[in-house]
């Protein structure tokens, strides 16, 4: 079986600052991989590179067996099959929720408006947002906005979903509803790469957790193993600070 996502020696620098220093990662189909690590360890950059929003400096990335970092690959086509959800939702504020969700399916996949709306309403319904279809994003709570952002990505029927600290900007009481959505996606078999600070959520949902430190995957393994018995001193240090902050 081909892997859903493979990263080989991926490097990325901003000016002289090397953020990713050789990332190797293999994500199987239907696998849920969580990326943990301190801010600045390269989690977000890694996700943005997979989505080709950031060009990589060296290495190769494969999605479903195809090298997407090869010369001449149409980045727009690649992005169609990969959904990404950002920390700051990034909904389009001048469009209703429904138009936010139908924009890409109609413009990129060339779906008929009625079909796109049908697809959008089905998804909104599934995640308890059907009554918000005509609202503008400003009117929604952070949790609702983030769920809409997830729905917007799902409307493209991606094979791979990337989540970039999607609960970090939320009030604590709104975190659960968003995590619930991601749990449901995991249950439905979606392949996901999730950067998160929510350790108990990661323990719950991940098949595997990767600890990023200073641009490399320092340690990885099943959640229980990595979170309970980390081998690397840096991992132990990081988890210790998380525990002290009461987040685990």
């Amino acid at each position: 079986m081909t892997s859903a996502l493979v990263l080989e020696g991926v490097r990325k620098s901003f000016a002289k600052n090397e953020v990713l220093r050789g990332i190797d990662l293999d994500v199987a189909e239907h696998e849920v991989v969580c990326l943990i690590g301190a801010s600045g360890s390269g989690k977000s950059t890694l996700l943005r590179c997979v989505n080709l929003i950031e060009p990589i400096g060296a290495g190769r990335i494969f999605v479903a067996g195809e090298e997407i970092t090869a010369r001449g690959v149409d980045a727009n086509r690649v992005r169609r099959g990969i959904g990404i959800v950002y920390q700051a939702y990034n909904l389009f504020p001048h469009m209703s929720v429904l138009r936010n969700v139908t924009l890409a399916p109609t413009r990129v996949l060339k779906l008929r408006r009625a079909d796109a709306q049908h697809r959008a309403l089905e998804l909104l319904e599934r995640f308890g947002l059907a009554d918000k279809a005509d609202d503008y994003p400003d009117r929604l709570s952070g949790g609702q906005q983030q769920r809409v952002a997830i729905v917007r990505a799902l409307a493209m029927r991606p094979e791979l979903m990337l989540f970039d600290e999607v609960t970090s900007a939320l009030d604590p009481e709104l975190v659960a509803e968003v995590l619930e959505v991601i749990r449901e996606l995991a249950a439905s078999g979606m392949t996901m790469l999730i950067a998160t600070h929510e350790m108990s959520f990661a323990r719950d949902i991940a098949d595997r957790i990767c600890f990023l430190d200073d641009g490399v995957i320092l340690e990885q393994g099943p959640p229980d193993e990595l979170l309970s018995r980390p081998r690397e001193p840096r991992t132990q240090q990081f988890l210790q600070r998380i525990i002290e902050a009461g987040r685990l």
Partner: protein
Amino acid sequence: MAGQGGRGTGLPLEPAPVSRRSRILDLGDGRGGVSIAVVSTLLVFGALVLLITHAPGWPEVKKTFFDWGEFKDSFPEIAHAFKLNVKIFCIAEVFILAIALLLAVLRSLPGPVFFPLRLIAIVYADFFRGVPTILVIAVLGFGAPALALQGIPTSTTFWGIVALVLVYTAYVSEVYRAGIDSVHPSQDAAARSLGLTRFQGLRHVILPQAVRRVIPPLLNDFIGLQKDTALVGFLGAIEAFNQSQIDAAATFNYTPYLAAAVLFVAITIPLARFTDWLILRDRRRRQASGVAA
């Protein structure tokens, strides 16, 4: 005289959610505020009127600038000539809005490939913002027809419009650019992540937000354009200002200028209120639930 009034590229501002009322009409809280406002307004304006009407030269000024008979006599002709101003700024504005948007988009394209296009846009904006409008009008209005090339229009109105389009496009493209820059890059990232092309992202995500934010300064430039249509009269076209000059010269009375002024103001003020309304409507729609809009 080259009407360089108030064109900034200043960003206007996501309307502040502080007050729903207009700042000018914000009279403070309750009836006390209103009555204080009324009294102070009356005092200030009363004092001004007293000062002016008691000036030694007032009777003379009144006769030459505020002669009701002159006003009535000259008004119909000037109003007729004003139609030419309206025609000029309506035609010019359509081209300005379209070409300026194109320029602004060219200038926002990233990467070394687009450098020549960006350079052209920058040189254009720098040049035409630097040259006085009246010079561009004179050069084109007198120069272009003098070339006597076959197929080149000789109408002064035509060249007046071309000159205004050239000059105002430079200003308006800067306004658009400010709007485009004010849309957070994450919006573009979100659009591109969904698989939209650069052009689709611009068209559906960036530009609609950018243009909405710059409607007030766009209107500001539109008003400037309306006033600068009077400069086309310099080429000999009989527009409102030229007509009022003719009338004034014939009667040695300046009241026709007042008639022209009234016409200009009559068209710019409703436009300003209309823009306020547009902004308010947009804000309400975004803040209220979608169903109610």
